[in-house]
């Protein structure tokens, strides 16, 4: 220590000052990025580890914590409502995203088409749903999906039976997935559109000269080159779908009991009511950990499926 202390001033007296240009610019860079890392450590990283820790304790957020081992996980996995929330989340995620992404791709192709003479206007129109709040969406759709609402009127005029959209098992899921689709379809279409625009047009011209049909162009050029965008959008949509909360919470909240109704309970509404309604922070933390595990599993599955899609058609350029 003493040696170092004496060595330093000696070096400084030489040609090299301590604050060289490199050091100064490194320090600046670290300072510029530090707000993120400081805030994330406090409000992101620490809470994540604390949640995992918390999932092994019994706690009501006020009194002392009591270590219970895996008891919380046993409790939630033996609670039928947890599994209902899990299957609801999955069903609504599938219903809300799969058709939505196919439609989004279709819309993106239309928006990009040479036939489209109103490029800017149509983009704005299709993107508009995304700016409304989910609360507003849930409120508007709850009138449309009411027992005597517009959708049932439409079903009736087409000769079909009314559906109980705000209480039936499938009804609730259809209504909620429709809200998700309506809000996100245009957004995803815009992302796909940016992918379409990144494909150079001369590839299509070359294909046309070689006599490729529209369908062939779609399968051999568009889809493979769009693959990174498809992966990105599917990933983001899956993560979003697993976190479904506001739509069921607001849509089913009419009775004042919150979204404890089984038809629409999702993993996050389950977590919310465990923690903030029942005061069981331990089981809520275990739910959060399970949710994270499922998120990772489904993200990996997703990546595997979407990277295989169009993978063997030779579109390796992407």
């Amino acid at each position: 220590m003493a040696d170092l202390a004496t060595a330093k001033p000696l070096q400084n007296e030489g040609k090299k000052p301590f604050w060289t240009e490199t050091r100064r610019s490194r320090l600046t860079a670290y300072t510029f990025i530090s707000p993120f890392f400081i805030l994330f450590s406090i409000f992101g990283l620490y809470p994540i580890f604390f949640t995992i820790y918390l999932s092994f304790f019994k706690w009501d957020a006020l009194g002392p914590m009591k270590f219970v081992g895996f008891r919380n996980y046993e409790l939630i996995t033996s609670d039928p409502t947890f599994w209902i929330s899990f299957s609801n989340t999955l069903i609504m995620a599938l219903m809300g995203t799969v058709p939505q992404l196919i439609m989004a791709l279709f819309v993106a192709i239309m928006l990009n088409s040479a036939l489209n003479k109103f490029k800017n206007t149509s983009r704005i129109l299709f993107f508009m749903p995304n700016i409304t709040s989910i609360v507003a969406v849930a409120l508007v759709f709850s009138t449309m999906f009411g027992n005597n609402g517009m959708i049932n009127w439409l079903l009736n005029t087409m000769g079909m039976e009314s559906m109980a959209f705000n209480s039936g098992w499938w009804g609730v899921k259809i209504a909620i997935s429709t809200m998700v689709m309506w809000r996100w379809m245009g957004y995803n279409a815009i992302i796909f559109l940016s992918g379409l625009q990144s494909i150079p047009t001369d590839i299509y011209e070359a294909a046309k000269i070689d006599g490729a049909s529209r369908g062939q162009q779609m399968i051999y050029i568009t889809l493979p080159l769009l693959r990174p965008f498809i992966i990105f959008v599917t990933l983001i949509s899956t993560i979003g779908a697993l976190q479904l909360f506001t739509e069921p919470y607001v849509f089913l909240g009419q009775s004042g009991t919150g979204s404890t109704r089984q038809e629409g309970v999702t993993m996050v509404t389950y977590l919310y009511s465990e923690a903030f309604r029942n005061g069981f922070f331990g089981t809520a933390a275990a739910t959060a950990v399970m949710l994270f595990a499922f998120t990772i599993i489904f993200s990996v599955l997703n990546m595997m499926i979407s990277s295989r899609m169009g993978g063997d058609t030779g579109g390796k350029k992407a």
Partner: protein
Amino acid sequence: MSTAAVNMKRKKPDDARIIVKILFYIFMVLGALASIFPFYWMFVIATNDKSAAFHIPPLLVPGTEFFNNFGRVLERTDFFRALLNSVVVASSVTISVVFLCTLAGYAFAKYEFPLKKILFVFVIATMLVPVQLGVLPQYVIMAKLQWIDSYKALIVPAMVNAFGIFWMRQYISSAVHSELIEAGRIDGGGHFRIFWNIAIPVVTPAMATLAILNFMNVWNDFFWPLVVLKNRENYTIQLALQQLFTNRDGLDFGMIMSATFTATLPLLIVFLLFSRWVIAGLTSGAIKS
């Protein structure tokens, strides 16, 4: 013979093209209608009387009841207070996010420093973690800091985010030329001065896009405010809207929609004013991962 065959061949695709064109426009118009109809419906219900939401056949024309409906909103909830809360929270978060994310994005794009790659990958990775994973301890932290029921709980954790850093880095790496920065350094400009005077003016479009996207996100957030706000007078507009819906004495959709419409209108106007910017930003390739 051969010319006739050619003519035949040429005629058929033309017919097909017209059909494709017609189908194309039908789908476009239907899609656009589906996108904007709920907004219009919101307005129709907001301007008609109580029973309008379930009128058969559905009402499609605006009425004259808007101010009566909105009057009932003001009786039930402090609508303008909630609106003001949202404006304060969303603006302060947005100003902070745009500034701090631009700074960090600039550092990641234009500086060399040890661990840069790892730190950047870390930033990106944080986007994949569900918010709910940390929400319980976050609540506990807020309680310990005594920030429950205050703007601080909504503003401070949101002051900078990974998406913004990623977004600004992408834009800055291509838009700001390193030669300009070096020239500034040689002329003796400080690091922050160069950032402020050289980088910022070049990246304002990306900052504007980030600002709008962020403002909309914060304005529309529901989960976190629901967790940390207890007192009605601190409610953001989204909580106030939801509160109207949970009234047990029969649902007055005229009132609910007049509130929803009024709360959506400012955002709609801002979006329509800046929409080309937002969408051009989104399609400019800054999303590419």
